[in-house]
């Protein structure tokens, strides 16, 4: 309502308040982000400082000795690779196939929606419940005994929803217009999937699988009743053997072996977290690569 000639772009009291709020919000959000990084940094630093001295070539290549108070972690390391590999072989084909069906074929009706809901809920089932399911289904009913096979299948069931959801998201990220253009040319659903959808979703699918690996390798509960052993000095020879695993080994030496040197659990944890972080780095690398060659 002021009639006096004002200087162009002169600030009003309202502007000043807006600026203060802007500064406040920005600072607050930034601090929350910083807070997010702090625990990660502390954990990593602690592990390196206290466990770094335990790491050596021998540590990675020899089995534990002297009641697991000395020696290395080779059987656990190899065992984890076995468990993750077998779990992947079981879950990836099923998960990707299911995701392709749900994303590309399934009609949008109540059945599909209930299946999607079930998958999301399955992802929320606690891992100890999966462990009990694994004991009932794979160890006892299918008579696989406590073995890599039973443990890996339990892990596979547990991570299946993650694979399905991440794959479906990668598929959905391919614009629908591409599909319609293809269908309009007389392409079948499968031709469209094979030539247009999958080639553009495959990197995202791989990223999801790598994240699954990193998650699987750290799981403890699902394997401790189904196939992971307390102590085994030998490497597994097949999927029906029991095996040691990194995650359970860490639990064991941290809680069940009071004589273990201080650096040992930290060293095991450092190796385990390095495996996971390496996998995550690989997945981030993939993402950057994908973004670089995005085709639309």
């Amino acid at each position, binding site marked *: 309502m002021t009639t006096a000639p004002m200087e162009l772009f002169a600030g009003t009291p309202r502007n000043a308040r807006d600026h203060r709020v802007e500064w406040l919000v920005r600072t607050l959000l930034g601090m929350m982000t910083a807070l997010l990084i702090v625990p990660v940094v502390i954990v990593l630093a602690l592990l390196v400082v206290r466990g770094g001295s335990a790491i050596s070539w021998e540590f990675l290549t020899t089995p534990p000795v002297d009641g697991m108070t000395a020696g290395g972690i080779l059987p656990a390391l190899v065992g984890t690779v076995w468990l993750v590999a077998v779990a992947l072989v079981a879950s990836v084909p099923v998960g990707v196939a299911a995701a392709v069906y749900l994303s590309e074929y399934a009609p949008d009706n109540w059945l599909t929606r209930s299946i999607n809901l079930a998958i999301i809920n399955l992802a929320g089932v606690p891992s100890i419940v999966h462990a009990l399911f694994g004991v009932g289904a794979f160890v006892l009913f299918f008579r696989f005994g406590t073995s890599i096979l039973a443990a890996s299948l339990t892990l596979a069931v547990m991570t299946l929803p993650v694979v399905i959801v991440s794959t479906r998201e990668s598929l959905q990220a391919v614009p629908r217009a*591409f599909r319609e*253009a*293809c269908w309009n*040319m*007389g392409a079948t659903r499968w031709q469209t999937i094979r030539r*247009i959808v999958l*080639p553009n979703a495959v990197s995202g699918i791989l990223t999801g699988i790598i994240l699954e690996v990193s998650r699987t390798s750290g799981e403890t509960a699902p394997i401790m009743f189904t196939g992971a052993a307390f102590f085994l000095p030998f490497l597994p020879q097949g999927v029906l053997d029991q095996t040691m695993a990194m995650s359970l080994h860490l639990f064991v030496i941290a809680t069940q072996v009071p004589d273990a040197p201080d650096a040992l659990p930290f060293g095991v944890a450092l190796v385990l977290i390095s495996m996971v972080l390496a996998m995550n780095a690989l997945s981030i690398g993939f993402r950057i690569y994908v973004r670089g060659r995005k*085709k*639309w």
Partner: protein
Amino acid sequence: MVAGIAPNGAEASADAPPKVVVQNLTIRYGSHVALHGLDLSVRRNEILGIIGPAGSGKTSFLRALNRMDEFIPEMEVEGRITFDGRDIRRVRNVYALRSRIGVVFPLPVGLPLTVYENVALAPRLRGVRKGSELDEIVERCLRRAALWEEVKDRLDSLGSLLSGGQQQRLTIARALSQEPDLLLLDEFSIAVDPVTTMRIEDVLKELKHEMSIVLVTNLVQQARRLADRTAFFLTGEHVETSDTARIFSGIVKDPRTHDYIEGRFG
């Protein structure tokens, strides 16, 4: 049925049975009626222009011809459409039907493939494997879409890196690579500059010797330049269809057609 179509003096072969016959076509999206009780035919080797303001049902009509309602939620089609005398609802092999119909939409959809692969896709889908044959098809289609000279040195770069107008011509080349007998164009020139539009229009005049073309356009003058017959749609109603020359010389059955052409509404 043949005798039912009187020759209208246009160069389209009005004596032959029509390519497409549409009877009592009604299209709904949920409770919204997009097109109501349409009777229309597309003759062999003609360009049928369809004009009308936004929301008049032009695009829905094109969609129905290609049975796109199967993947557009809510779209419902009633009535009968025959293609070469066959009821398209009863065509079991919808893929074969669609492969004979080329579709070009207002905004170009460059598939996430190279320029070459965009045009080679349809031939590959129908089983062409030989490299030399594909090369030949790609070059011919790109030339016809007035794009060859601009992209011949970058066939291996992504189609989406082309300019908007080039992408639209790529879409046209892709439609032609299907070797269609019916070409549906929905306001193809929206994203194309005027010079290129004219070049494509010249191409269309050539193409109609090999196929039937349905040209939906917002540009009344484009229909005047290209179409043998022009249909006027208004809010889902088919007002009239007549020889383009007649309509544009003011000989209309319905005064609304005249008003639209003169730019009095729409």
